[in-house]
């Protein structure tokens, strides 16, 4: 893994709140973001640690999937942390959420790596095909970024909401099955399901 050249800041990832299966609440995420914004604005080296703490797992998960190479993903994550710290004072939270901004940086750095894997065309006839492939690389990286962004938003929902969505969309359970398994009345399951989807939609829109 390459070394991140940020002086004095925390470098190793603290234990992530999400790692123990207890998703953070929106208020906690909001507090973390506000702290991060203050750190970014004053170019505080601690910003890298805050990013790592709040978004490291999502960024690394995304980079691992898009690059299909754990080592490269670790390296690119360090680049993302460095770039975010360097560009922090210019970040405008009115234009995008912290998550969207970080995922945009991660996506760009991932595309750089993926492009370097594409050999330069020696045969001019191959140029068109390679251009097609470049487009595919960007599409692929963008689609995966959107999914991992959604994963982070999921982690900020209340645990009962996220749990319902997980049962429905990961485990493929019907709402009746969820009601049966959890003991929650079917009508309540349905109402909470819609609210959770609406909340995710709202957060997604806010971040765009």
């Amino acid at each position: 893994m390459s070394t991140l050249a940020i002086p004095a800041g925390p470098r190793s990832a603290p234990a992530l709140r999400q790692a123990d299966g207890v998703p953070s609440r929106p208020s906690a995420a909001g507090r973390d973001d506000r702290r991060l914004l203050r750190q970014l604005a004053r170019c505080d080296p601690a910003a890298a640690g805050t990013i790592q703490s709040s978004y490291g797992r999502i960024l690394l998960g995304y980079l691992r999937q898009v690059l299909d190479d754990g080592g490269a993903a670790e390296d690119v994550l360090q680049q993302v942390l460095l770039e975010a710290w360097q560009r922090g004072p210019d970040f405008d939270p009115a234009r995008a959420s912290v998550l969207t901004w970080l995922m945009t940086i991660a996506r760009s750095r991932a595309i750089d790596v993926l492009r370097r894997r594409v050999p330069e065309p020696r045969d001019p006839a191959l140029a068109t095909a390679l251009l097609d492939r470049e487009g595919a690389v960007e599409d692929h990286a963008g689609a995966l970024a959107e999914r991992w962004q959604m994963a982070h938003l999921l982690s900020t929902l209340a645990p009962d909401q996220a749990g319902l969505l997980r049962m429905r969309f990961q485990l493929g359970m019907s709402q009746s099955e969820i009601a049966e398994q959890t003991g929650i009345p079917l009508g309540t399951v349905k109402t909470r399901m819609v609210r959770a989807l609406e909340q995710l939609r709202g957060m997604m829109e806010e971040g765009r």
Partner: protein
Amino acid sequence: MSREPDEQIGDYVLGELDEQERSRLEQRLREDPVLRGRVEGLEEIGSLLESLPGEAWEILGPRPARAPVKARRAAPAWLRMRLRVGLVAAALALLLGAGIGIGVLIERPGSPSGPTVVLRALAGRPSSDLAVARMASGGRMVLSVKRLPPTGPGGFYELWLMNSVHDLVAVASFRVGADGQAELDVPLPVSASRYRYLDISLQQSSAGPAHSGDSVLRAPIAA
């Protein structure tokens, strides 16, 4: 409407609404652009959640155990049959009459279990166009499309596996009616892993079998 609107909208988005209620709601969606926008937004979130990789769900913690239940699992929204049998028959007759090699339009698609690919509109196309493809057992692919413009006379959509405009293979042809939807369960002629994109193009039966160059939806196939 006799039921709570939110419940009904949720059931619709999750594909758990019965046919009669679905028809009523779809009628309302056609008349109410605000409601339509809300439902489309929820469907977009649902599609994203459907396509989340397992690793992403682990952000929430270990995968929970699923207790055995007596009730039969409802099919996911995009798998549920949304075309009446009569429409299917009409579509088949049209396709066969036009001499098009087609995939199989079926009432109840098989059980998809593989990765999901969400195809999105290309630049210049309505952003609400959407298709979801999932690899199924036995080398099959289940495709569900929503909100595609209806195909006119002599027109049809073609699903392709594609590396580039010079390296591609046709998978299935289909038509879309006024509801903008179609469900297909098609055998793959080759392994999808050899290709980088899934692509849906608008074709004209008079123009031959080659890709028209008019792609409407596309997505990279994740490794």
